[in-house]
């Protein structure tokens, strides 16, 4: 199967400080892959570069093996069917839940379809229906994460980039979010997730990459990675 997204020898730096240094990875349609790494390993940098929000110093990023993402603007990349669940949700806090969802489908020409999709999301997340007129900034962390995920799904993307979806959530909510990740993937949507919660992420992912100071140090099927001693020591060690 051809790769949906392919990154080759990507290098990104902030000024002279390299943040990502020669990262190669790929994801096939319908797959769920995770990039594990500590704070500052370069996870968010990779996602922002995929979206055209940061400029790559070197390397290639291709979509569907033919489209060069490095030449496109963020809104053009979104139009290809790529959606984003940013780190820390990053909702439009002064806008209502409904407006956040509507903006998720900003590029959609068919407004009736957009309304149907929003209705579908409110169906799936009844808590959001209760709060649909509230401003997003007034929701709890878990509810905000649901808005962030629903907002990403409105445009019916082929690939969702998820940046630490479990960050800052209560344990019960963390489990709900990972269930949701699995559910989205089961719908056939490819997911490239960046996480620090290795234990949960390795349970849902098909494939995992380990990122350390801007370089991929390990990669392989999630189950294999989870059983590696080095990984256990760094990411899974200590507490159960």
């Amino acid at each position: 199967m051809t790769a949906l997204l392919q990154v080759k020898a990507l290098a990104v730096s902030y000024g002279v400080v390299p943040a990502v240094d020669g990262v190669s990875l790929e994801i096939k349609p319908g797959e769920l892959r995770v990039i594990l790494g500590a704070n500052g390993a370069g996870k968010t940098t990779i996602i922002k570069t995929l979206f055209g929000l940061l400029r790559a110093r070197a390397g290639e990023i291709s979509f569907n093996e033919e489209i060069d993402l490095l030449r496109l603007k963020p809104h053009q990349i979104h139009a290809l069917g790529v959606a984003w669940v940013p780190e820390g949700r990053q909702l439009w806090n002064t806008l209502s839940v409904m407006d956040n969802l509507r903006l998720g489908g900003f590029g959609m020409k068919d407004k009736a379809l957009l309304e149907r999709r929003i209705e579908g999301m409110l169906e799936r997340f009844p808590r959001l229906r209760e709060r649909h007129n509230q401003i997003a900034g007034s929701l709890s962390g878990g509810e905000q994460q649901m808005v962030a995920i629903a907002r990403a799904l409105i445009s019916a993307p082929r690939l969702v980039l998820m940046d630490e979806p479990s960050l800052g959530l209560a344990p019960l909510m963390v489990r709900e979010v990972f269930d949701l990740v699995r559910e989205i993937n089961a719908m056939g949507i490819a997911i490239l997730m960046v996480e620090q919660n290795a234990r949960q992420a390795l349970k849902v992912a098909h494939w995992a990459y380990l990122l350390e100071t801007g370089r991929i140090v390990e990669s392989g099927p999630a189950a294999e990675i989870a059983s590696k001693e080095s990984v256990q020591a760094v990411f899974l060690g200590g507490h159960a």
Partner: protein
Amino acid sequence: MELLLQQLANGLVIGSTYAVVAIGFALAFTVLRVINFAHPDIFMVGMFAGLVGAAQWPALGFAIAILAGALGACFVGFALERAVIAPLRGRDVLMTLIGTLGVAICLQNGMALIAGPDPVAYPALLPRQFVDIGPVALTLRQILNFGISLCLLILVSLYVRRTAFGRATRAIAERPDVAAAFGVNVARICRLTILLASSMAGIAAVSVGVLYGSASAFVGLLYGLKAFICMLVAGNRYFEGVMVVGLAIGVIEALVTGYLSSSLRDAAAFFVLIGVLYFRPNGLFGSYAA
């Protein structure tokens, strides 16, 4: 009591103009991250464009002046965006500040070269007529100025709250990166925002020109300063907040003129600014984090 009501009415009339100009500042600042020092002079160009329009087609009077004012200001706004703001986007905020300041100086002195440095008479496009509303006497020109400004403010509010482009405008104001990643063409919305701010300023300028019966190449300075203060006092989080502060500053000035001294009028806004920022550095209604 009568003086109070009269000054309140006078204040609202001029405050509504401050509010329109201030919204233009606020739009440019929140959406494009630009302190657009050329905005007051776009207002000034709009005023002269209206004057020229009215002179060309006298039969069409006020309507053509408004249209010409909007188009003239819109054109300058367009050129400013293309030539200065867009090329400097993403750079340090000081760069665009200096760029727009340069354009402002060119516009002022360019107009002074064409029209002369002294105020010129504005065509009397509306009859000089008083209207009594209870104990308050306003001129037809004042009422129309207030009405036009209020319409503009309501339209902007509806635009940013009820339309897809307006929502995208607010989305860029709060999180430009996320907006771009969700399919918003940021460059296009930025262009549209400048055009909107400029044409509004042009319309308000024609109305003010008719109200006071004069136009000057340096008229932008006063309105620009007041409008800038309105934005700082309100904070840039809610456009409606900027509108309310615009009206309030107008009223405060009118009350100062009525009860204290007209020579203190222009200082009033600064006292408000200092007072508010001392207690609420992010403005009365809050600001987006930079």
